[in-house]
């Protein structure tokens, strides 16, 4: 027998790999995607399938260009997670080129320019999203009407939309956050009553269910110990506090209710699937709590005072910049160093 010379530890946690982690994240998005599909039709699923295929191709190409082995990294599923998260954030029935540009930017500019998995300072999906939002504002705001108000497009419509030369010309509707931003002169409660889109049980038809299911998926991931509670709790708490402070009994220029903020737009999706991206966030638990809280504050400020209806993407990218700084000030107390500091 030849003796292997390997270093300790010799045992490894069974079934623990990057691939496993990524698979669990993908699994956790399923309920949210299904609800999106129920309310808005198959657009999101088609986005995801098309986007993932493109992402794999881009990743392989990037690895090949960088002269790396492209088989092992492709199997880690991380690029599929990036594409899936981006495609969930895109409007359903986006044209193919919008998806292609978004995925390309995410994978190439968001990830490989910096050295690939683990080296990207920014959340790749959000890089792609923001580039699209800034470059193609029209296409990026073409959400369809949810089930209960309009016709939900079918598979054929979906494919037509995907390969249409111009953007999908079915009825495009404003999302609750759009309506909220465009509101002028209506009291918050009246606004919530005035439009069919806003009369969901909690915060806008369909959107509250979408948020609830992403919340459920997030809690499952938390229980699987894929990430810790710090970033999501930080963000949701900060958002709650801001909304509570800014809520002025529902005047026409006020900030909107706490529930409206918690269950609208990308709140839960952002809290559990975007800001929990470990690579681009702060490293320590305390750091992640602060990271999340700052995102929460930014989301509120941009939603209420900014020019864009939703703000998770901007909030996350801004905080990605700040993450190294947060790390510097939130190093945990190492064993045996507490007392020394107290002595000083």
């Amino acid at each position, binding site marked *: 027998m030849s003796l292997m010379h390997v*270093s*300790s530890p010799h045992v490894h946690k069974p079934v623990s790999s990057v691939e496993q982690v990524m698979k669990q994240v993908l699994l956790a998005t399923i309920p949210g995607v299904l609800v999106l599909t129920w309310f808005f039709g198959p657009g999101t699923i088609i986005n995801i399938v098309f986007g993932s295929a493109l992402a794999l191709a881009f990743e392989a190409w990037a690895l090949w260009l960088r002269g790396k082995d492209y088989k092992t990294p492709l199997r880690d599923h991380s690029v599929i997670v990036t594409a899936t998260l981006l495609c969930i954030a895109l409007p359903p029935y986006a044209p193919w080129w919008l998806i292609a540009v978004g995925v390309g930017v995410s994978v190439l500019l968001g990830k490989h320019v910096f050295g690939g998995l683990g080296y990207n300072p920014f959340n790749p999906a959000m890089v792609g999203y923001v580039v699209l939002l800034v470059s193609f504002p029209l296409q990026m705001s073409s959400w369809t009407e949810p089930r209960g108000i309009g016709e939900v497009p079918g598979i054929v419509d979906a494919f037509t939309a995907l390969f249409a030369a111009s953007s999908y010309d079915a009825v495009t509707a404003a999302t609750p956050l759009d309506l909220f931003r465009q509101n002028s002169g209506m009291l918050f409660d009246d606004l919530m009553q005035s439009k069919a889109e806003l009369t969901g049980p909690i915060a806008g038809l369909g959107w509250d269910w979408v948020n609830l299911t992403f919340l459920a998926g997030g809690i499952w991931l938390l229980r699987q110990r894929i990430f810790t509670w710090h970033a999501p709790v930080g963000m949701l708490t900060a958002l709650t506090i801001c909304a509570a402070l800014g809520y002025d009994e529902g005047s026409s220029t006020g900030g909107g209710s706490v529930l409206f903020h918690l269950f609208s737009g990308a709140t839960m999706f952002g809290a559990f699937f975007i800001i929990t991206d470990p690579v681009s966030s702060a490293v320590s638990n305390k750091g992640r709590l602060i990271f999340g809280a700052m995102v929460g504050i930014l989301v509120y400020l941009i939603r209420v005072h900014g020019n864009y209806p939703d703000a998770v993407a901007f909030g996350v990218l801004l905080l990605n910049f700040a993450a190294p700084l947060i790390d510097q000030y939130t190093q*945990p107390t190492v064993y045996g160093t507490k007392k020394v500091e107290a002595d000083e």
Partner: protein
Amino acid sequence: MRQIFDIHGGIHPPERKDMSNPGWVSDCDMPSKLVLPVTQHIGAPARPVVEVGDTVLGGQMIAEAQGSVSVPVHAPSSGTVTAIEARAVPHASGLTDTCIEISLDGKDEWIGCEGLDNWRDETKAALLERVRLAGIAGLGGAGFPTAIKLASDRDGGIHTLIINGTECEPYITADDTVMQCFAQQIVEGAEILAHMVGAETVLLAVEDNKPEAADAMRQAAAALEIAEVVTFPTKYPSGGEKQLIEILLNTQVPSGGIPADIGVLCQNPSTAIAVRDALIDGKPVTHRITTVTGMSLKDPGNRRVMLGTPIRELLETAGFNADSADRVIHGGPMMGFAVTDLDMPVVKITNCVLAPTRTEIPPPQPQQACIRCGMCAEACPASLLPQQLYWYARAKDQEQLERHNLMDCIECGACAYVCPSHIPLVQYYRSAKGSLREAAKEKVRSDNSRSRFEARQERLEREAAAREAKRAARKAAAEARAQAGDDPVQAAIERAKAKKVQQEAGQ
């Protein structure tokens, strides 16, 4: 019931302790020859005092301690010295060491051993000397000379003695077995240790996955008033000295310090027995109880092994199937190291020899990029940020490594165990620690040369100042003279004037 406390992080790897049938111990067959390294401890190597061809008896000292941080080596049985040369020895770095080979004659004749009738009458120094001469070094795996550990009482002294029977590493059951079979001797040893260091409390610490050992210890501890058995939840690495102290006492050993700094002394149960045997029976350390386990063995279990027994022979007596194993581990699966040569001997720190099959412990998986998931930080018992340490270790950023307290890493491997990217983190830390130590030494050297430079500079300045002072003194004296009327310059001028007057007068 004593209150216990929790530590940060920790993991729960499969224990697999049943395999070696804890609580039973059998003698390993006498090998034909023994290979005894002169360094089985941390510190200076012992110096051989026998020569090739000498006959030795069991218990005879064959290498003596050199310097204070060193312990002697004794022959475990009778025979003839057949070689003294460098051989491969069990050490993480894969080094060789001078070894004394003894071919045994099978008679197992011993020298007469003389114990103390009443150790309480002896001075501490005399007791320490006996511990030192018996060759005792931490038998739990650390191998630090016990006499040194017992002697170092910094201000305040030692108030608590902890007998560390945690044995949190998977597979190993040597301490468990020792506690079940020799509880009384452990408590006797603990009493001696407590007496030597003046401890008021003795805590016998046992993880709650060893109820039989805890029971045995409880019965034995009834004989010692200051002793108390404490059990606590099973978690790796609760048996780390620093971690155990936090669990039992809710205090932390200061960074860079040792338990004695906060008045605590930790000893392994086998070490306690060795101290007892040295004082009461006058016997040196020549045997130890070692767990021989793993699925490559037909007959795993705990063995009483002569030090110096080649690992190959130990494995063979346990029915080793070499075809199914591709590594043999000295120590446990978390912190042990792979044996590179089966002729390496069992030494004082060999608490386990593990021969797993290829499916039991598969070869390491390829390393992937760190995704900064933070699972390592969640698992680290020292509250470090292993992912940052990894990053800085790769970047060789010594400043950040120090800022992130690399030196407080206990190399427990919990981080690497959970890492989904299969990064051999501990390997990076070991080499980074090596370079940090180098840098520290380098700094001392350059500080030395800097202080030499500064000393020279100071001397030159002093000399210059002295010259200046002299010059100033001369000047002051001259001025003083001038004021007193006998300025030499003025005088010369006067003289010249007078001369001129005379000359003019003479013409």
